[in-house]
């Protein structure tokens, strides 16, 4: 007896869905970019554990799924009231709604800033001949890999934000990235292109959430241009469904005297991989890449950062903290490159982990490549358990165990959360910490 096994090829499937996306696209400039990305995708392979950058993250469980591009499925219709239930509402914000990778203006509300800032879809900007979009779109991304090609060839319509020079945006933008809601296993590619002009100041909160339905693959790619003397904060809150996949890449080009602060808060998702790459292309730049993740059950969170110090007198700070329970797994790899020219660079990196169970695991991999001789670069990694004596001290004052634990964990997370520029978001994050720690009890 012989059984014919047709071997599924995930690359070909994603290339096939890209072809469908490209065929529907009427803009020749975007089509050309996506055609190229599709052919690059077909010439790539998904990483295995032998791939250095993916050494600790096995993609087999991800690749075992047959995902359908959401553009080939019935459109998920949402009402404004449903959006209201998904946003952080404890602070005021300009809400930008992205549903399965497509920026939805009708559901968004940013009229207060629409005369100061360009907010549109990426194709609108390309059709409108926006010079900066042409210059930067899909060009900031460095170290292109299979997921870059997958995203670029499969994106339908992303979000483009351009903040002109000298514009200060007081309230934060809140990008609600909504996923799933389909009967089939679905995937979509979201793209953000954010160009912040000279001396501008802005803050973004991106919140990824999942709708009820089958599991999904949330694939986000964000590109940032942070111009001279500009301050940009980006707070990424990942609350995907627990059975779903989230693979996100962030590429940043920082110019002279600029400040970029990026935070990843990961609570949801079965497998989450975040790549944040910043290029410090000039002098006197500050860059902060922080993260906090709480995982339980079989969640697997992988954070990978790369800071490219190209010129002298810049500073980077990195602090990633994790709390891992049950059989969960965390990965942190932080690469810092200091070019020969980048004298007087300061680079600080830290990764601290608390393991709440014997079977939770963290792999921490600092990677410093330093070619300049007058620099200050430090890195540290700690792994520990909850301080038993502190726990007993709190219990002995009448505070129950679950509250005592979350007090200690909130305290552990404190120096990451404290740096957020939105006070109410700190409360939201602390609440998410408490909820995530006690979710067995809450459910």
């Amino acid at each position: 007896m012989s059984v014919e096994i047709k071997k599924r090829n995930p690359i070909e499937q994603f290339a096939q869905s890209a072809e469908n996306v490209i065929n529907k696209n009427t803009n020749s400039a975007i089509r050309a970019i996506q055609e190229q990305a599709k052919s690059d995708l077909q010439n790539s392979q998904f990483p295995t554990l032998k791939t250095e950058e993916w050494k600790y993250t096995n993609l087999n469980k991800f690749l075992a799924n047959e995902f359908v591009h959401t553009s080939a499925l019935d459109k998920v219709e949402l009402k404004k009231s449903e959006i209201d239930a998904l946003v952080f509402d404890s602070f005021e914000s300009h809400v930008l709604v992205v549903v399965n990778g497509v920026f939805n203006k009708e559901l968004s509300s940013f009229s207060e800033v629409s005369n100061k800032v360009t907010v549109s879809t990426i194709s609108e900007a390309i059709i409108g001949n926006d010079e900066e979009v042409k210059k930067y779109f899909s060009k900031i991304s460095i170290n292109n890999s299979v997921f870059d090609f997958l995203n670029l060839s499969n994106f339908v319509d992303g979000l483009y934000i351009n903040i002109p020079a000298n514009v200060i945006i007081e309230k934060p933008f809140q990008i609600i990235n909504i996923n799933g809601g389909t009967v089939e296993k679905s995937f979509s590619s979201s793209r953000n292109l954010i160009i912040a002009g000279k001396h501008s100041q802005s803050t973004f909160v991106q919140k990824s959430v999942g709708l009820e339905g089958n599991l999904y693959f949330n694939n986000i790619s964000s590109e940032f241009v942070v111009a001279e003397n500009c301050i940009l904060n980006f707070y990424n809150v990942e609350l995907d469904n627990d059975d779903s996949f989230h693979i996100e890449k962030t590429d940043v080009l920082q110019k002279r005297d600029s400040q970029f602060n990026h935070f990843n808060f990961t609570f949801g998702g079965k497998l989450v991989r975040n790549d944040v790459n910043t290029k410090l292309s000039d002098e006197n730049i500050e860059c902060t890449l922080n993260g906090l993740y709480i995982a339980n059950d079989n969640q697997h969170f992988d954070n990978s950062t790369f800071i490219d110090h190209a010129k002298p007198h810049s500073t980077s700070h990195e602090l990633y903290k994790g709390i891992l329970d049950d059989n969960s797994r965390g990965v942190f790899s932080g690469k810092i490159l200091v070019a020969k020219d980048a004298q007087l660079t300061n680079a600080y990196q830290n990764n601290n982990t608390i393991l709440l169970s014997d079977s939770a695991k963290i792999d921490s991999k600092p990677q410093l490549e330093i070619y300049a001789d007058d620099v200050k670069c430090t890195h540290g990694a700690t792994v520990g358990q909850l301080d038993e004596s502190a726990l007993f001290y709190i219990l002995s004052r009448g505070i129950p165990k679950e509250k005592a634990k979350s007090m200690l964990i909130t305290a552990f997370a404190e120096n990451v959360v404290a740096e957020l520029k939105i006070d109410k978001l700190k409360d939201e994050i602390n609440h998410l910490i408490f909820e995530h720690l006690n979710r067995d009890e809450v459910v």
Partner: protein
Amino acid sequence: MITIKNLKAEIDSKEILRGLNLQVNAGEVHAIMGPNGSGKSTLANVLTGHDNYEVTSGEVTFNGKDLLSLDPEDRAREGLFLGFQYPVEIPGVSNAVFLQTAINEIRKYNKQEEITPKEFLAKMKEKAKVVGMDSSLISRSVNTGFSGGEKKKNEIFQLLMLDPKLAILDETDSGLDIDALRVVSQGVNEFRNKNNAVILVTHYQRLLDYIVPDFIHVLYKGEIIKSGGKELAHELEEKGYDWITKGDK
């Protein structure tokens, strides 16, 4: 208040308490003295419910309840307080949040209403004054970066804030200079009334000049080998422990 009968306890399979008996009534202050390694701190930790210690036999009744069957947090809610020998630093948790949570958990357990923020603040100010604690310490993280003396004062501050029925003070006087000792003692004396009780675990007779006990017990090798009134302290001061323990050798 508390009755301890034939209490035996061990740590890492090593027996420390070997049949201890003690009865403390409301309104009384008992001092437990003894040389190093006699089991004083073990007694304090066993009563508070530290899980490093294993009780192998005996019983402890606290206001009619079987104390040993309660979790540490429930012992506190029933009105037991331990002043730690080594207060723990908890970076990131402010004294104020810590105490407000504790007070409300205790109140909730006893079916009382939560303390209002206003009441809480007023009480904090009042009690901080008693122990001469700077108000900036209150907003700081619990014991973090405190000097030894500040940590001990903070224990007494917590004692006054939580107002338990029974306070066990484990070497609260160790390492204090005379000024701090006076302040700490004053706090304890302020706490004392006819409805509560104090067990002072101490090394030094000096503390008993400031907090006058009703009874003194000498703990040696896990048992109380001598009990007496406050005058016993002076005898111990003069003659040392050998006077009582030499028959043992």
